[in-house]
């Protein structure tokens, strides 16, 4: 990968993250309270005069606020959803003002396990409240209020981000007009939870984990976090995409009868695991997987998703991908069915893609065409139709 000598024209360009401090206490579902906290976020595009063109982007498990553009000319890669955010892209910054945040419990600047707890002057570590999707949505409401946005034109997310968008539509129906839920699910399956549990065990049994207080020991549970990421990565890809990418290719062309890296896929997974350790916090990983496991908006409605969605008013775009076996198209169809049961406005597209769960990040033409066409139909005050 070469550095961008000049920023591409359809990029949002160089971006500076911003920080919003909150001093009003935030109550978490687990019963804990944070008296003060901060949320780091980025914005792309211009907020219009009556603040009616704002879109909120919610990130997935390992995502953060840096969704588009570059932080410096030295960046190798743009933000994680640069394929979809920018001038002329589905989330068109010529029309929309886009806000992307790092969720609470994250490790990229928003208050989380690796930030200092003012009461102890040490990192929160494992004492950071167990955070749920509902908690995130409540904190995002406050971020919107701080930015002067009382109603989002759309809330958009893939994977765990899509779950936040869905939760918004249920909890705050008046505060969003459109809800875009991509490669998501109304709840995790036993298999999904099982994978998360293996990831957590890998981290928590690492001798460098120190019950989550590894910061105090100047340690990092490298092996554990690396294993968790390797396992996660397998679930983000598909059998087909791994076969296409690596096949059974050997790194040195021949079998060596040993346990070192021999197959290309092993080398790739180890690389993914190692580079993840350098950019992510193990306690945050644990929190994110718990938020995933607990997500089940239908639970409060006698496990009836149609009842949970009875009062949503947002128009929905739901997108799934054929080879996604982590949150398969059937899971998205459950959301669609609950919406059609209630005669809500919904579009549903199952995009043919071999990339597995990661497809939602890929520039797949049909996916981008549908996404763009949908967003173009959204009317904003002050625009000529």
């Amino acid at each position, binding site marked *: 990968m070469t550095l961008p000598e000049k920023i591409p024209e359809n990029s949002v360009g160089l971006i500076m993250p911003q920080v919003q401090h909150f001093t009003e206490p935030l109550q978490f579902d687990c019963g804990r309270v944070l008296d003060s906290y901060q949320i780091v976020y980025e914005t792309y595009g211009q907020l219009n005069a009556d603040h009616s063109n704002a879109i909120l982007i919610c990130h997935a498990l390992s995502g953060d606020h840096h969704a588009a553009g570059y932080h410096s000319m030295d960046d190798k890669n743009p933000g994680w959803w640069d394929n979809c955010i920018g001038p002329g892209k589905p989330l068109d910054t010529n029309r929309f003002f886009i806000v992307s945040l790092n969720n609470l419990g994250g490790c990229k600047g928003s208050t989380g396990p690796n930030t200092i707890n003012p009461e102890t002057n040490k990192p929160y570590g494992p004492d950071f409240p167990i955070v749920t999707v509902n908690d995130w949505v409540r904190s995002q409401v406050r971020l919107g209020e701080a930015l002067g946005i009382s109603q989002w034109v759309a809330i958009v997310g893939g994977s765990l981000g899509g779950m936040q968008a869905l939760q918004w539509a249920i909890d705050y129906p008046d505060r969003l007009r459109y809800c875009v839920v991509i490669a998501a699910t109304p709840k995790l399956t036993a298999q999904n939870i099982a994978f998360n549990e293996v990831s957590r065990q890998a981290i928590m049994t690492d001798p460098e984990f120190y019950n989550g207080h590894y910061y105090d020991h100047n340690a990092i549970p490298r092996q554990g976090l690396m294993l968790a990421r390797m396992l996660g990565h397998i679930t983000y890809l598909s059998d087909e995409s791994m076969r296409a990418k690596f096949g059974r290719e050997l790194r040195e062309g021949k079998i060596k009868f040993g346990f070192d890296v021999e197959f290309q896929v092993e080398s790739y997974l180890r690389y993914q695991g190692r580079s993840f350790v350098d950019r992510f916090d193990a306690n945050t990983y644990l929190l994110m997987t718990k938020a995933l496991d607990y997500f089940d908006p239908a639970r409060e409605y006698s496990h009836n998703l149609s009842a949970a969605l009875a009062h949503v008013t947002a128009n929905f775009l739901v997108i799934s991908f054929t080879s996604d076996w982590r949150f398969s198209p059937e899971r998205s169809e459950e959301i669609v069915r609950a919406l059609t049961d209630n005669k809500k406005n919904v579009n549903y597209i199952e995009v043919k893609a071999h990339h597995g769960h990661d497809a939602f990040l890929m520039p797949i033409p049909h996916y981008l065409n549908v996404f763009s066409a949908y967003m173009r*139909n959204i009317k904003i005050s002050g625009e000529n139709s």
Partner: protein
Amino acid sequence: MTTTLRSDLALISEWIKPGTHILDLGCGDGKLLAHLRDTRQVSGYGLEIKESNLEQCVAADINVIQMDLNDLQKGLCHFVHESFDYVVMTQAIQTIHHPDLLLAEILRIGRECIVTFPNFGHWTCRLSLALKGKMPVSTTLPNPWYDTENIHLCTLEDFEELCDTKNIEVLQRAVVDPNHRTPFMMRLLPNLFGEIAVYRIRRKPGKAIPVTH
């Protein structure tokens, strides 16, 4: 915005009561749903499978849901009994693996159904088979036999026979040509001169639809 509608679609939209909730199976580019929304305040969903059609439906701002009509187990069974005032299926029944099962299913989820199909009893089809001994190719049936989605072609006579055996009541019938005309001869001998058949049907009150597969 009213663009010219295909002849069977123009006729159907006159049959649909304003303010109703409909399901359009195989909704194509979404023109019918958009037309009904704009002119008759009709709500509802289109089901479609083809990528280019799906993109056009989204662009037309209608509710489209990707679903394979041949996958009945996965698809329609999730809609509850009489979810829709009308289920519309235009020029699609002849492309379905089990048209009789699909008919039973759409008459379960819709109070009434409107079905259109190319009439294989049209005189040009008969002539093609009788004189040339070849499968007909025409404007309503443009593709050769080996490269067509139309795997279950039928005549008006065939369709009405199926309705009879399945306890389906025909509420309204029309035949049109592709220009939305019903000339005199078509009225007189619809199975011979009708190019496109349009039916409005429902379950016979109090009778179940026998399922034989």
